[in-house]
């Protein structure tokens, strides 16, 4: 799992109202393990991020508004800076979630990090990923 890099002693005021919430990066974390969810949530909070944690790819799509009939649109006002997802989860994998996100005009630019303790590169269709890159970055 991730390593923790504690910042040097920061002079952070207790008054969190002084921190505009727009300044905090908002991370959506997806993991079916409750242990990992608790760890990631804390790790991201310590890193001064706003965190939303869900327990499945399906719930992530619901949160983004990418389920149901609006599957390629999503919620325009939702501000998410990064998506971190476990790779192997029951139901939809993290990779399948990645693909759905990349199909959305609203969310396709958001970086998606897939986490795994296994070597998952052989299981990822790199041609699919590369063609996304070509289609959306020219």
């Amino acid at each position: 799992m991730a390593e923790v890099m504690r910042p040097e002693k920061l002079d952070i005021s207790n008054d969190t109202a002084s921190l505009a919430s727009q300044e905090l990066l908002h991370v959506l974390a997806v993991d079916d393990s409750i242990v990992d969810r608790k760890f990631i949530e804390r790790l991201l909070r310590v890193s001064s991020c706003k965190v939303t944690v869900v327990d499945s790819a399906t719930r992530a799509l619901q949160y983004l508004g990418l389920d149901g009939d609006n599957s390629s649109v999503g919620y325009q006002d939702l501000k998410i800076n990064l998506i971190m997802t476990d790779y192997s989860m029951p139901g939809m994998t993290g990779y399948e979630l990645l693909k759905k996100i990349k199909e959305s005009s609203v969310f396709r630019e958001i970086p998606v990090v897939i986490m795994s303790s296994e070597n998952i590169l052989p299981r990822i269709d790199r041609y699919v990923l590369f063609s996304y890159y070509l289609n959306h970055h020219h």
Partner: protein
Amino acid sequence: MNNVVAQLQRQFHDYLVSLYQQGFLDNQFSELRKLQDDGTPDFVAEVVSLFFEDCSKLINTMSRSLERPENVDFKQVDSGVHQLKGSSSSVGARRVKNVCISFKECCDVQNREGCIRCLQQVDYEYKMLKTKLQDLFNLEQQILQAGGTIPQVDIN
């Protein structure tokens, strides 16, 4: 009075170091400790508590899947081992994680007896770790009650 705190802190330090040295815990546990601060003094205890609940649940389901020799659901067992390996890695439960590695191998070749042995070992290891960590948390409580702070423990 300061002597009591210093003594308890020494005890805590030595006990935690021994847990690393004996292979009960690995570096991931120290990463977990780094995430705890004065504002979240129960963080580590909460995470490991969730882990032990996870262990208990997964061991029960896998045990049922392995019960009848003529009808073993190895897919289910494999799924359970995978989850157990993941969460034990996340909290730094090194011995539990290592058993999971052997467990997966038995599952891959559909060795029911091997799986049952690994299941028993996993059960033993998580319960052992649970006792050890309970002792560690008790020491923490004693230090705090005596007015001291929990020592940082650096492991290489």
